[in-house]
């Protein structure tokens, strides 16, 4: 009796949790026939927003990988005083309300911000430009990548790295031939997470970059604007983002199920050319 009840409780709670998570997404699709999704792409507002979103997210993603990977590698492989503090700084934007991120970007890169006069002297005016969108989404999305990348690099077998070094490979060669391929699955997962977060960013973007069609209006901002103008278009755009996010998540699963050990043992045993 007791065991039966416990089982029922767990089952019941799981069903509630699953339904709650799935319902909003399912509800979107009950209001958007699939044909409308294709038709939606002919709407210039949606097309412009999609272009701005993809452009800014692609640039942000490149920046995150380029600067985040070395940072994650150093934080994962070196032990030094203040390391925990640095990791906390990296993780902070993850828990920061996006509106605070937006205010912070103004305080740093706005016209009357910390670097305002410097940027002005260089002829750079960042707020309300695509650069502002890129900065906002990079700030909010990069912790997801760096955190995952740190974990991935930490999981790399130290003996393999040490072996590479004793066999005469320099730090750079060791990174590119040993650590990077071994951490590949985790890095790809982090990259996909950051991409999804960047694509969905709203709060910091609308504050720091404003919203102008074809310039700074990303898909989430366009959804917000359409919400009060044309609910059907807003919900159809929501469906579009669900599809994109789902595709990202699936590729993330694929990246994670990719077996680095098998791959690398094969490549390690292969004769080096």
């Amino acid at each position, binding site marked *: 009796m*007791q065991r039966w*009840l*416990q089982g029922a*409780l767990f089952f019941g709670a799981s069903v509630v949790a699953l339904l709650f998570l799935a319902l909003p997404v399912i509800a979107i699709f009950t209001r958007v026939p699939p044909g409308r999704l294709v038709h939606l792409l002919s709407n210039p507002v949606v097309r412009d927003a999609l272009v701005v979103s993809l452009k800014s997210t692609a640039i942000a993603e490149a920046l995150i990988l380029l600067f985040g990977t070395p940072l994650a590698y150093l934080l994962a492989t070196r032990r030094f005083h203040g390391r925990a503090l640095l990791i906390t700084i990296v993780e902070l934007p993850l828990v920061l309300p996006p509106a605070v991120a937006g205010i912070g970007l*103004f305080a740093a890169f*706005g*016209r*009357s911000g910390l670097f305002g006069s410097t940027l002005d002297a260089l002829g750079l*005016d960042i*707020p*309300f*430009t695509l650069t502002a969108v890129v900065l906002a989404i990079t700030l909010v999305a990069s912790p997801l990548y760096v955190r995952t990348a740190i974990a991935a690099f930490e999981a790399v077998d130290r003996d393999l790295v040490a072996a590479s070094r004793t066999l005469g490979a320099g730090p750079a060669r060791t990174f590119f031939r040993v650590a990077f391929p071994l951490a590949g699955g985790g890095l790809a997962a982090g990259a996909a997470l950051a991409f999804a977060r960047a694509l969905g960013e709203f709060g910091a973007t*609308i504050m720091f*970059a*404003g*919203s*102008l*069609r074809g*310039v*700074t209006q990303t898909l989430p901002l366009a959804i*917000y*604007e359409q*919400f*009060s*103008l044309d*609910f059907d278009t807003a919900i159809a755009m929501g469906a579009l983002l669900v599809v994109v996010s789902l595709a990202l998540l699936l590729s993330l699963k694929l990246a994670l199920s990719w077996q680095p050990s098998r791959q690398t043992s094969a490549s390690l045993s292969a004769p080096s050319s």
Partner: protein
Amino acid sequence: MKRAICVIALVALLVTGVASARESSSLTVFAAASLSDAFPKIAPHATYSFAGSNTLAAQIRQGAPADVFASANMTLPNGLYKDHFCSKPVVFTRNRLVVIVPRSNPANVHTVYDLRRSGVKIVIAAQGVPVGSYTLQVLKNMNLTSVLSNVVSRESDVREVLAKVALNEADAGFVYSTDAKTVPGKVRVLRIPAWAQPKAQYGICIVSASAHKAAARAFVKRVMSKAGQKVLVRYGFLPRVKKG
């Protein structure tokens, strides 16, 4: 077994708590962002949600628990009335538009016509927001639609426009004269001639789904009363009926 009962009791408590959260407040007023300062002075005990009128109207259409809707135009409440979401709206005040520039005036804007100069960063409200369509009317009236090519952002309500100019991040913006008054040290005001002003009438109505109809009616009465009108005028709003 005891633990299981505890869990069930806790869940039941949570569910009823969430379900009843909506009933706890007394009167909820959805009002245009431009009323953020004046309305709490008229009725301090109501719960307010200030945003772009268009956002509020869309929320009411989705069943938001509002009792009163106070919009910065007549179009939105009339639309709600037509679709049976609220009572027939009445005009309760009026407003006029101004151009604001940051106190330091980085782009040297001294008249509305200076906004045509290339490189002036202008922030306006989005088209669906009442002040956004009023802005377009002013520009059309003054034959200045070319100014739109200098617009760098279309914000979701008038206070966002105000904030971005007051922060010195934009060179100029179109807001109500009442908004400009709330940040006196931070912005300079450029007048827009009377002949170019739009008919900026504010409409108020009682939401059909309201569970507090009597309190809602009392609120509207209070806004329309001499005392209510006096507060609005003190904040720079115009009397609801044009004199003369």
